[in-house]
């Protein structure tokens, strides 16, 4: 199995990716946290004052939504260029090429965990409290990781052939932000659209994070099944597509 055999390379690549992201400093990490917090603040002001949102603990509600969405948006966007960005490791030597995608997604995964960790004191400060259900977080996050990894495999492979995919994906991610229940609750989505709306695989996951972290309850079984099957589907489809396209990477890159 390539994951075991090349674990050292995966580790080194993941760490160097994180180092670049945070410029090897604590302050670099603080900067990266500022982004979701400011985003939350702006959205909070706009939606609580202008649109009169009436959610309980709306700030935390928003923040959980934003932080969970960021893993999808940042994870897939940076993993997309992971093959093209390390072309010498594709054309000059043989390594299982999934390693490049995996280490990029792992680095985003670690960033995302850190962002969620900062959420914990905020849960206490803003009065939501913490319940044992928080122990489900690792499980949900691993399901999410599989989804992001599956999508990233497909994107990274396609990007070798279609270099404007990054622009297209940026656009899709922007749309996705507003087509996920981040700034508004799922209950406001009209019933006749709900079927289509739930096709967005991140929706169920955001709901699950909110159940466990904010509402101190078990995620609903239907959401869990939806998230799990979407993740499995992404992993399988992504891997198959990657396997097929990988054959001509060295020529096309």
């Amino acid at each position: 199995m390539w994951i075991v055999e090349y674990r050292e390379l995966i580790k080194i690549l993941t760490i160097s990716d994180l180092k670049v992201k945070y410029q090897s400093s604590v302050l670099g990490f603080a900067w990266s946290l500022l982004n979701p917090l400011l985003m939350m603040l702006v959205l909070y002001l706009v939606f609580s004052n202008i649109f009169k949102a009436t959610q309980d603990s709306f700030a935390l509600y928003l923040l959980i939504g934003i932080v969970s969405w960021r893993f999808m948006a940042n994870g897939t966007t940076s993993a997309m260029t992971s093959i093209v960005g390390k072309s010498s490791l594709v054309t000059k030597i043989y390594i299982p090429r999934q390693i490049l995608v995996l280490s990029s997604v792992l680095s985003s995964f670690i960033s995302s965990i850190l962002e969620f960790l900062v959420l914990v004191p905020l849960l206490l400060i803003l009065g939501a409290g913490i319940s044992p259900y928080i122990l489900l977080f690792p499980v949900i996050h691993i399901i999410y990781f599989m989804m992001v990894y599956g999508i990233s495999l497909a994107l990274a492979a396609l990007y070798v052939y279609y270099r404007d995919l990054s622009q297209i994906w940026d656009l899709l991610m922007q749309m996705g932000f507003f087509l996920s229940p981040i700034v508004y609750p799922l209950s406001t989505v009209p019933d006749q659209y709900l079927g289509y709306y739930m096709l967005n695989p991140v929706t169920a996951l955001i709901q699950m994070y909110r159940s466990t972290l904010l509402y101190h309850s078990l995620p609903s079984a239907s959401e869990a099944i939806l998230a799990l099957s979407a993740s499995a589907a992404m992993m399988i489809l992504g891997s198959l597509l990657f396997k097929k396209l990988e054959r001509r990477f060295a020529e096309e890159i």
Partner: protein
Amino acid sequence: MLRELGLKGREHDLNGNAIVVDGVSKTFKIPHERKITVFEHLAGLVKGNAYTYEQFDALQDLSFSVKHGETFGVIGPNGCGKSTLLKVVAGVLYPDKGQIRLNGKVAPFLELGVGFQPELSAKDNVYLYGAIMGLTRKEIDRRYEEIMEFSELKRFESMKLRNFSSGMYVRLAFATAIQTDPDIMLVDEVLSVGDEAFQKKCGEKIDEIRRAGKTIMLVSHAMGTVGALCSRCLLMKQGRIMALGGTEEVLAEYTRITNEVSGNAAEKAEQ
């Protein structure tokens, strides 16, 4: 390296062969207009000139095998497909037809220092390069001293790689790569490394590996090197096998062809 192909080979044992190339063909499609965006593909569909391309048959139905412990040379004029062949065996390129079977751990030396990062120290780069070659941290720990000793760069281990001269760079790369303890080495004219003294050292090291019973597949222009190291040779021309056999005969054949070509050219010039 644990490629699917390699695993398969291990199971079947390949009758004492380390590398079996079975009916391998590789064709490159070179499009007249290279399309690298979704937009260009869509535009091409509308215009109707969607996919026209030149075909270049780099390898045509090659079959041969390399025995365990053999040093096998691949020679031929420029553009005959020898580097493509090495890349297919290394797993970088996939063959369009046919199969490659390998028995053992492979280390490709297509280019030295792949993945080296100029901003990291020499030490970090040794660990990175070792990891790229599929070593675990412990394995690199064990070999680190030897790598530094062989490359004669112990004093510079904490220096950033970007301050290295190109000679130091390849020395470090070669010293690390050679320590990966492969069963099969694929070498593409990288023997000309560093100054003469270091070249001699590399030559000795490769000789040592050869005598230890490892398999080496060597692509080279240097007839002297091939003649001295290889027991068997493959001569390629335009993606096909021209000659395959003992080094002396194949080298003689190559010289004959080269002379023929230059002889023809001379004749033409006279006319």
